[in-house]
């Protein structure tokens, strides 16, 4: 099984469009939407629901006012500023349980709460796992890990050879959970200083965890000079650019219609480039299986 994560650093560079388009050209993969704060891949899928589960995220403390003697020990020992005036702020509470440990009267209890939902859909190209973390909830990294585990289990049981991950923006907790142990990162960037800046942070992250990474520049022709600069920066880092996707108004049309780009505009320039990138990733992954060596992208 090959695990490919589509990431970006900067948000809004076209990760979901890329994943939905590449998946269109395949019929034996499992899709995992790991952007659990803002899961949009399922909007393009038109899939049939298979299962739905509750995500019991983190423990939250609560204080029983009947037993509380207002000693203030819980407040003093909370490292997250989650207790003020002997009340627990559920948004700040990380569920560590320090307050329960220090409470002399046993007034603090910890309970698990439902903080999201995990879904499996059947699509024409294979199953899709995605999750909805309720707004304002924490522990997104843990939910990402669950989504990935479920996707990998499905790949085994359904006999699929690829898990394709639609990742979150950033380089923090959910991003790290999305890339840990994958075989390849495809970074989608855009020709701008921000795109480049955040791409370099992502490349550093990939280095840090020793994960092969390659790059595709989306809307490259919006600023060919900047695209050239980004490719040069990547080259200096030993990272290859596997694709240049042109700016294509059909992309906006397909997003508004909530359908994968190639299903509506199979001959559009962006769709053709996503197809080419996908074939390249696939052939590189096959080489890996054949030789038993790690992907040589750098």
């Amino acid at each position, binding site marked *: 099984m090959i695990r490919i994560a589509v990431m*970006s*650093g*900067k*948000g*809004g*560079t076209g990760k979901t469009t890329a994943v939905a388009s590449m998946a269109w050209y395949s019929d034996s993969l499992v899709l995992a939407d790991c952007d*659990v*704060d*803002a899961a*949009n891949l399922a*909007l393009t899928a038109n899939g049939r629901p298979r299962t739905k589960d509750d995500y019991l995220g*983190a*423990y939250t403390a609560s204080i029983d006012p009947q037993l509380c003697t207002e000693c203030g020990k819980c407040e003093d*020992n909370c*490292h*997250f500023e989650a207790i003020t005036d002997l009340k627990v702020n559920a*948004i700040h509470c*990380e*569920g*560590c*349980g*320090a307050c329960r*440990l*220090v409470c002399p009267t046993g007034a603090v209890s910890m309970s698990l709460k439902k903080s999201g939902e995990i879904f499996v859909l059947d699509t024409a190209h294979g199953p899709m796992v995605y999750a909805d*973390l309720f*707004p*304002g*909830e*924490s*522990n*997104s*990294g843990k939910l990402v890990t669950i989504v990935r585990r479920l996707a990998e289990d499905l790949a085994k049981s359904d006999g699929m050879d690829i898990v394709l991950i639609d990742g*979150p*923006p*950033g*380089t*923090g*907790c*959910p*991003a*790290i959970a999305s890339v840990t142990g994958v075989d390849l990162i495809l970074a989608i960037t855009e*020709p*701008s*200083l*921000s795109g480049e*800046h*955040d791409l370099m*942070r992502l490349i*550093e*992250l990939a*280095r*840090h*965890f020793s994960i092969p990474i390659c790059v595709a520049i989306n*809307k490259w022709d*919006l*600023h060919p000079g*900047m695209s050239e600069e980004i490719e040069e920066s990547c080259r200096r880092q030993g990272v290859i650019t596997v694709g240049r996707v042109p700016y294509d108004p059909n992309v*906006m049309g397909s*997003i*508004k219609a909530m359908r994968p780009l190639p299903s509506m505009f199979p001959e559009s320039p962006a769709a053709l480039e996503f197809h080419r990138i996908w074939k390249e990733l696939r052939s590189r992954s096959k080489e890996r299986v054949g030789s038993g060596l790690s992907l040589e992208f750098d």
Partner: protein
Amino acid sequence: MIVAVASGKGGTGKTSVACALALALDRPLTFIDCDVEGANAHLFLRPLMTFNEEVLIPYPFVDLSSCDLCGKCVEECHFGAMLRLGKKVKVMQNLCHGCGVCRLVCPKRAVSMTGRAVGTIHKGVAGIMRFFCGELMTGEALSVPIIKRLKKEMDDLVIIDCPPGTSCPAVESVEGSDFALLVTEPTPFGVHDLEGMITVCRRLEVPCGVVINRSFGDDLDVESLCAAEGVPVLLKIPFDRKVAEAYAKGGTLLEVMPDLEEQLDEMFLEIRGLRR
């Protein structure tokens, strides 16, 4: 007056709007870039950086000479960050949240809390603005402590450029603001993620209003969501390929659309009336 510029979905134009607003107001203010996983505002405001500071979180140190390997810390750690390996107890750096439970439960007092750097904050000036941004260290997972540190730099007038998403980093950035300006794009993705962000603002009791960026004029889905939620649409910024071209090289919205300056000024007056 603290204005948080947030979005839910990434890449909708938070940084562009936050920078344009700060420049349009043209008065002394504090600009805080809270997107510590991908800080970009400095590329547009080009501040002169004057000061760096490391952000530390509490981190356990296990004195193995007093540890009798009872395993209490391993049992009680809610984050799975303590591991017993042979005759040692090891802290898994990436899982530790610095809560201090290991120290509290250790019967031998073998655990003490030290500090560990997870990132840096940078301080500077951009014209008449004070400028702050933060940077999460590569491979570190916890952005919230850096955001918390940045938010200690409060002032009479503050513009906060928030990270995307609707979980802890976004919540931490928006919390305590007088108003949240939610930047969205008129697509089903934008609408879906805007809805989550409106819920966050409601939970935090922060009033909010919407800026529709890259508008093609026909933004019915966003407008009907806003009407249903009772959230005002404050400004529409039309789609213009020239914006993307200027943005690529660090140009601001105001350079391409000078008329926006007055509109942002007016919007700010409107926000003053809507704030908490």
